[in-house]
């Protein structure tokens, strides 16, 4: 009998150990980075963004503060290597190994003309087979954000409606205002790039804030730093990759200050020039100003964007008014990432003096707000993975019926949950296979254990 008791104890121990091993190792072994399939998962799936909003009779101020281990203030550099100038042609998958992608913060804004945005935020702008999605193909670089109603079939990026319809939609306000602060390409100008999303992610009218420094015919830069100004005509690669050049403010080429590139200079291996030249733009694209320039210190970026409540460009910028409630959603690129490797927020409502909103902007008199007196609002940003609007509205998404009924995403999902769902979407086939195997193994383990115990509980001779 002692033998049976020992076997019973041993089998129970084996069963318990198998359960504990399963618990201790669950949900591992499948999710791993695979740049060849555009798969790269950040270590942190969520991050905080502190937001303060204030306004006066003329302007609205958004103050953002978010953590970043170090500032990344260079992007798109031209480098002298192997005896010739070269341009980096491919965007990185995930974090750039050299740290050469600028930090960015973007905000989409609507005044009620895009009702789905208020409920689902940036998800509505993500179409099928978008740029950098797994399997999107080499020709996907142009497949960027769009609003669903700009397509005859929202699932088909190329089914764009006719120009007359798109124009009518714009007059009706069917576009999202998009502010984009860039640590390299706009911050030195004390500007944010003013864009909008309609049938495409478009730039507001006016000259761009930057233009290419690459001479395609000559295969060399067009402009360089002026040696007569006392500095070197170029940067050094080790400085821009190590972030030592100028801390949180990059050394940039500016129109009017840069001088024509001189190929006759004695260029050295590792010399670097910015791939873009910055310039002032007096038009709509430069409506958003950075108050005091965005600065990084002690692990945090602090950026304040300022814009007129009414810019006078109602077909490109949303007009804001006292007592109005507006929808906003944010994204942050940090750790030298670009494209879809960003953190995004769910939509929230900002009320200008109106309490029926997630965040009430503080009204003030004078030229600038007293920030310590403005209540902060913490927003959780999350890594969204590869979740598209066509998927969310399809029968494959269990919540599609709620979307059809207009139930807001925040009613059903939290940010951390969406981050995990986003990651799992990227490994769906592999996870489902492993899940099936685990399900069957669990059933077999239960049956095996109980059957074994029943054998030991029988009367001897049965």
């Amino acid at each position, binding site marked *: 009998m002692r033998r049976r008791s020992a076997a019973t104890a041993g089998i*129970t121990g084996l069963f318990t150990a198998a359960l504990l091993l399963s618990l201790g190792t669950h949900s591992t072994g499948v999710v791993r980075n695979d740049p060849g399939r555009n798969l790269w998962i950040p270590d942190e799936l969520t991050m905080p963004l502190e937001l303060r909003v204030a306004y006066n009779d003329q302007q609205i101020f958004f103050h953002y503060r978010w953590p970043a281990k170090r500032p990344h203030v260079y992007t798109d550099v031209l480098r002298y290597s192997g005896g010739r100038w070269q341009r980096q042609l491919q965007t990185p998958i995930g974090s750039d190994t050299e740290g050469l992608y600028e930090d960015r913060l973007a905000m989409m804004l609507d005044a009620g003309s895009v009702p789905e945005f208020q409920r689902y935020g940036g998800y509505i702008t993500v179409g099928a087979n978008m740029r950098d999605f797994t399997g999107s193909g080499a020709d996907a670089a142009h497949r960027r954000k769009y609003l669903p109603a700009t397509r005859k079939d929202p699932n088909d990026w190329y089914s764009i409606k006719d120009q007359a319809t798109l124009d009518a939609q714009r007059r009706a306000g069917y576009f999202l205002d998009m502010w984009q602060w860039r640590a390299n390409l706009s911050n030195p100008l004390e500007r944010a790039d003013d864009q909008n999303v309609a049938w495409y992610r478009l730039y507001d009218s006016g000259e761009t804030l930057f233009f290419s420094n690459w001479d395609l015919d000559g295969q060399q830069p067009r402009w360089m730093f002026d040696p007569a100004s006392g500095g070197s005509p170029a940067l050094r690669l080790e400085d821009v990759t190590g972030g030592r050049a100028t801390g949180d403010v990059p050394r940039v080429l500016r129109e009017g200050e840069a001088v024509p590139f001189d190929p006759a200079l004695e260029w050295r291996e590792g010399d670097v020039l910015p791939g873009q030249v910055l310039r002032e733009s007096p038009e709509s694209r430069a409506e958003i100003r950075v108050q005091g320039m965005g600065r990084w210190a002690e692990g945090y970026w602090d950026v304040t964007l300022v814009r007129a409540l009414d810019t006078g460009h109602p077909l490109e910028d949303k007009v804001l008014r006292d007592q109005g409630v507006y929808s906003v959603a944010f994204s942050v690129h940090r750790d030298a990432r670009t494209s879809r490797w960003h953190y995004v927020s769910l939509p929230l409502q900002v009320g200008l003096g109106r309490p029926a909103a997630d965040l009430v902007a503080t009204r003030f008199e004078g030229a600038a707000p007293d920030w310590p007196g403005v209540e902060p609002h913490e927003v959780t940003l999350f890594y969204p993975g590869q979740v598209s609007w066509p998927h969310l509205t399809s029968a494959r998404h269990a919540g599609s019926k709620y979307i059809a009924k207009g139930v807001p995403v925040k009613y059903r999902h939290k940010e951390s949950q969406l981050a995990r769902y986003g990651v799992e979407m990227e490994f769906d086939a592999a996870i489902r296979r492993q899940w099936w195997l685990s399900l069957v193994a669990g059933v077999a383990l239960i049956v095996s254990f109980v059957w074994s115990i*029943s054998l030991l509980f029988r009367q001897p001779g049965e």
Partner: protein
Amino acid sequence: MGPYHAIMVHFPVSLWMVASGIIVYRALSDGELARALDRVLVPLLVIGVATGIVAYVLGQLVWPPSTLQKTPLGRNHMLGATWTLSYWAAVLFLRWRAGERVWQGRLRRLVMVILGALGAGLLAITGTLGGHLHGAPAYLSEILRMLGWDVYTTFYVPTWVLAVLAIVIVAMPLLAKRASRGPPASTRAEAGQ
């Protein structure tokens, strides 16, 4: 089928929860009430498994398989439901096959307590996941998260653990068969009663 699934799951949930209580109580007590409750254990488990199968089938019809198996929460709920149903069917088999011998000896009682507690736990987790799917999340998922499992992450084990499980699955009955061929002895003596 969602509302019908929600109605139907009340039966196996309540029956198996009561069964868990009876198993633990009987394992700890030889009193008249414990013995009386034990006598209804097999009928309870039979009805529990029967209604559990109906609830399980209805649950599979709430969403198309491609939808249910697309989301972590759907996958976890299906996994929990499959394991729970299998588990309680197995417990029914054990109690029916071994009869009152399952209460003979401290070790067997301990095994039954483990079975009862584990069954209740599985049931609670599966029910919690169903609540999440229905849009009514419970605090239990926070406890699970503290224990290391976020219910919004699909539960699966890596391939090497599957290999270990396969070995355990084969080893347990082999061990039991080998031990059960041993010489008979008084179970009463083993129990020390």
